[in-house]
């Protein structure tokens, strides 16, 4: 069986995942910080963002960006691949923001108060005191969000991005053999299972470190 297409698809899936992980981390962190901001309108907007994107299907977000960005005032014409990255990032950012929010709020209030009383602005305190402490603790939950993101890249096949699932369907359409999907599944497994094991390892290391402290 010719697996060339599948390997090409796997490469696209990996690119899609990595780009979306970086972008959603950036957007999600900003939204998460906004959620705990002392300015009520900012915090309520961030809360709305998180609630909204957690409750609508990713496919709608992808279709919306596909149809909407060219017509918007920005007039941005994105390729299918870029649309998928944008959709995945905007959607996953809501989940990232929730993790960041929970992490920030689990820190002692004294951290913020001490930083502020040293003369740091709220933003500086976030950037240099609170966020660095949070990120160490939230790597495991972020890891599971990003594993879910990697699985979600398969939805890009619905907007004709030639990623792994798309390519396996191309092969299926030629050979009428649905078992090609099992091979594609094994490739997904080869990404998600080690990633999940790494997340678990980190998680147990961290809870160990916490109990020792």
């Amino acid at each position, binding site marked *: 069986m010719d697996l060339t297409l599948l390997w090409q698809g796997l490469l696209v899936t990996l690119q899609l995942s990595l780009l979306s992980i970086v972008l959603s981390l950036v957007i999600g962190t900003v939204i998460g910080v906004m959620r705990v901001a002392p300015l009520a309108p900012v*915090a309520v907007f961030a*809360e709305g963002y998180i*609630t909204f994107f957690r409750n609508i299907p990713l496919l709608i977000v992808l279709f919306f960006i596909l149809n909407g960005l060219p017509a918007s*005032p920005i007039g941005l014409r994105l390729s299918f691949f870029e649309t998928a990255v944008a959709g995945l990032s905007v959607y996953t950012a809501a989940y990232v923001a929730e993790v960041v*929010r929970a992490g920030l709020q689990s820190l002692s209030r004294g951290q913020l108060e001490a930083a502020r009383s040293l003369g740091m602005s709220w933003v500086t305190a976030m950037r240099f005191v609170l966020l660095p402490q949070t990120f160490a603790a939230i790597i495991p939950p972020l890891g599971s969000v990003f594993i879910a993101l990697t699985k979600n890249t398969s*939805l890009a096949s619905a907007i004709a991005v030639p990623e792994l699932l798309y390519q396996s369907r191309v092969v299926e359409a030629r050979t009428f053999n649905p078992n090609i999907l099992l091979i594609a*599944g094994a490739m997904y*497994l080869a990404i998600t299972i080690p990633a*999940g094991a790494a997340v678990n390892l980190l998680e147990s290391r961290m809870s160990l470190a916490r109990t020792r402290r």
Partner: protein
Amino acid sequence: MSIVVEGAPLRSAPPPVRGLRLSSRQQSLIGVATILILMPLVFRMDRDKFAPFTELAIWRFLGEGVVLVLLVSTAAILMSLPLAVGLALGRLSTRAAIRLPSIGFIEAIRAIPLLLLIFYVFLSMPRDVQTFIGRETLALTLALMVYTAAINAETLRAGILALDRGQMEAARSLGLTHWAALRYVVLPQALRNTLPPLLAQFTTLVKDTSLGLAISMVELLQRGVIIYQGFRNPMESLYVVGLLYFAVNFILEQASLATQRGGSARPQ
């Protein structure tokens, strides 16, 4: 410990924004309303293009989609429950011949994308299968059932493990067999304790029914696509359909949070 962790479907109620005398639900709604008001402005939606949504026939068409979404997700979650219990108990079994296949099944299903599973079920289903709901709907429901079972099996297993060992020991020492103890003592408690995350899975299911679009099932999102292909108003139609998904899910999430508050008091 499960290998692949899900993206935290259950959201515990976040603490409300400081300095605002509003509940966190009210704040969520105000925030979402802000986004919903901003979106038509940013994406230059046309007021005239919302015109189709003043017609009853369109709403009947969409309403059927909502009902279909709810039916498919309810069927999937109900059918998945026995399978989930079986898988959870299988994974906790002391016999490797039962435990290892259960672990393999759960982890494999959780590690692959749901859309892949849906395609696999759809494509490998016999062409001449006779159903009154259509091949697409059947394939989607079956795939969702298997997927939900694998995820809920993990939730249930955690629920069973969280129970005091004494529950099982006390039941056994009262003369119950291992199975009777599971059936009458351990499982009822585990099920009740894990009800909130099990319900939260329903929200995920509602969103995931939109994947039926990929196998050309005429569910809610597909109906939106049909409408915008007819009226050439993609943004406006997607906006309305997105709003419907949000409304259904938000109500479900609130219900799930309510059980979380009310139902998790466990006697210990």
